[in-house]
């Protein structure tokens, strides 16, 4: 188990009657890239502000480097923040912005100069030292904000939706750059975002939050592949939820009825809490895990294990073709993603048409069984 840098111990935060966080326990490991992910108002930014010291918890404790810092003001914490709006000092040059922290710490003269220049080089802004923030582009301002924070070698770097103001391409580039920077510096990053794609691609671990509570903590892969509940399943990535009824719980797997079919889900099926026989559950399948069969491909032996469906919509996405299909028996709508497959002549062209009758299936074991929320 890696060393813990920051720890929240049963932290609750209330504004008047409004509960922002409730009973949050979180241990952040040294050197990891941790992402707080959730919709707006879920409390993710509040967690950041609690660690930075801008807010005090209503109940609970914040520990930093093994010390209870709950009562310490922000300027006494070895933590730095990259603000969503960057919050660069408009009256100071880029150099002076970055030198702000070191000067307060007592750095002067050549040592200060070297420290600031080195950090500016780290974010590739060495030629912009004399400019004012207002003379920089959004991406450059972002780098100054990062430089201003990392120059202080904080125990933890807090990033509050730092990429949300950038356009798509720049955001993608900065994601990679931030990740590389984090690896190179070895600083613990706590990154707040509402963008699940960003969270999946950058993090070592993701904390999914909703309504002030932690819903799940895990690696991007475990969050995506084995979501703990309906909220996580729906928030992280797209998922098709099929209502199902548990018939029998056996060692070998789960017997369920789904859309009038009786199916056996193998043990590999991701289940956080094992349902009881007779319980109504959802079976969740990711769009890319659904396979579409054309009528010509289906043999009579195969037919009973497939779900008949009708294509509603065909959406060409370049590398994939997304199909919206409907199960005529129940009216359930599913979205699927089909990849171009050179080896499969039947779907090489993926020239599906709306209204076409097809069949849907997935590999048993790739689904998740989720109890009703």
């Amino acid at each position, binding site marked *: 188990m890696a060393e813990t840098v920051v720890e929240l111990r049963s932290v609750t935060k209330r504004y008047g009657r409004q509960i922002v966080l409730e009973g949050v326990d979180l241990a952040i490991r040294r050197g990891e890239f941790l992402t707080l992910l959730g919709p707006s108002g879920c409390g993710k930014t509040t967690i950041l502000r609690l660690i*930075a*010291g*801008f807010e005090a918890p209503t109940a609970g404790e914040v520990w930093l480097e093994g010390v209870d810092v709950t009562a310490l*003001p*922000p*300027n006494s914490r070895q*933590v*730095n*923040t990259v*603000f969503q*709006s960057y*919050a*660069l*000092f*408009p*009256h100071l040059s880029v150099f002076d912005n970055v030198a*702000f*922290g070191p000067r*307060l*710490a007592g750095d002067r003269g050549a040592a200060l100069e070297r420290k600031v220049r080195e950090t500016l080089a780290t974010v590739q802004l060495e030629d912009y030292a004399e*400019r*004012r923030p*207002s*003379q920089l582009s959004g991406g450059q301002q972002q780098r100054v904000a990062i430089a*201003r*924070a990392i120059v*202080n070698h904080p125990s933890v770097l807090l990033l509050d939706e730092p990429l949300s103001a950038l356009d798509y391409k720049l955001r993608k580039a900065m994601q990679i750059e931030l990740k590389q920077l984090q690896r190179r510096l070895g600083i613990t990053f706590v990154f707040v975002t509402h963008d699940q794609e960003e969270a999946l691609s950058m993090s070592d671990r993701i904390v999914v939050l909703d309504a002030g509570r932690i819903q799940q903590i895990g690696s991007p892969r475990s969050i995506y592949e084995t979501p703990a509940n309906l909220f996580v399943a729906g928030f992280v990535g797209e998922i098709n939820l099929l209502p199902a009824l548990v018939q029998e719980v056996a060692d070998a797997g789960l017997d369920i009825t789904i859309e009038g079919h009786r199916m056996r889900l193998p043990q590999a099926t991701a289940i956080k809490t094992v349902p009881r026989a007779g319980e109504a559950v959802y079976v969740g399948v990711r769009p890319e895990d659904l396979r579409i069969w054309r009528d010509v491909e289906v043999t009579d032996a195969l037919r009973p294990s497939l779900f008949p469906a009708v294509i509603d919509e065909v959406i060409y996405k370049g590398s994939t073709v997304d199909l919206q299909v409907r199960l005529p028996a129940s009216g359930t709508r599913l979205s699927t993603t089909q990849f171009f497959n050179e080896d499969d002549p039947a779907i090489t062209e993926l020239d599906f048409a709306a209204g076409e009758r097809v069949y849907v299936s997935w590999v048993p074991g790739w689904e998740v069984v989720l109890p009703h929320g």
Partner: protein
Amino acid sequence: MGDRPAKARGEARASDGNGPREQAGGFRRVAIGTTWVWLLVFALVPNLLVVAVSLLERGEHEFVHLVLSTDSYVRLLDPLYAGVFWSSFRLAAIATLVCLLIAYPFALALARAPLRWRPALLALVVIPFWTSSLVRTYALVILIKTEGLLNAVLLGAGFVDEPLEILYTELAVLIGFVYTELPFMVLPLYAAMEKLDWRLVEAARDLGAGAWSVLWRVLVPLTLPGIIAGAMLVFLPALGMFYVADVLGGAKELLIGNLIRDQFLSARDWPFGAAASVVVTLLMAALIGVYALSQRRLDAKGAP
């Protein structure tokens, strides 16, 4: 202050877009024309008259003798008058500083107060304007005179053994200046602070700044335009407020304002009073010029 012309231009352009073009143009001509005529008749012409009078000789029977002379200006070089100028500038400067020290935390509290409280708090700043400042100055006399309210309270509470002699001292004049001018310092400071991005204060705290560092490294530099505007609004009028020195300072404090007033009303030496006026006006203009210049230099450096 520096952006005022640009703003006025913007508004004029906005009014162009409204309604029929011709009508807007007509209104514009009337509005700007009225302002020009007003400034011409009530500012430029009187000032030119003052300049003209300052270059004439004093008359025995009429107010001025129509003979060109620089005597009045030469007389101003007398150390006696230099002393009057010096003590006036000193008192105005101290009043400005005291106003700044009181108004800065006040404006800060105002800008940080909950939004629904702010109109009420601002009203408290402005309400004293509803009473004539002369009346308020006389009210101050009642407060600070030897057997006044302040001394009654201090004696009653046992803070002092004998009444404080404040009235008719320099301190009384200073109190009068500060009291009268305080709102002129508070309002520009509040305007500057209200525009301030408070996340910058958070950023400074995050980077390790304590309260003093936040004040000196972030708040003061970012509210500097408000500080300078407030200082001008306090300092310049403080040079001319003769009635405060009259009422609260008795006859002891001779300030420029009083000197000029006396030349016109009691000494009947119009040229000399006019010369003193011209010098004060030039000094004020020089101050404003220095301020404008520093602003322009700041803008050129790429400040926000």
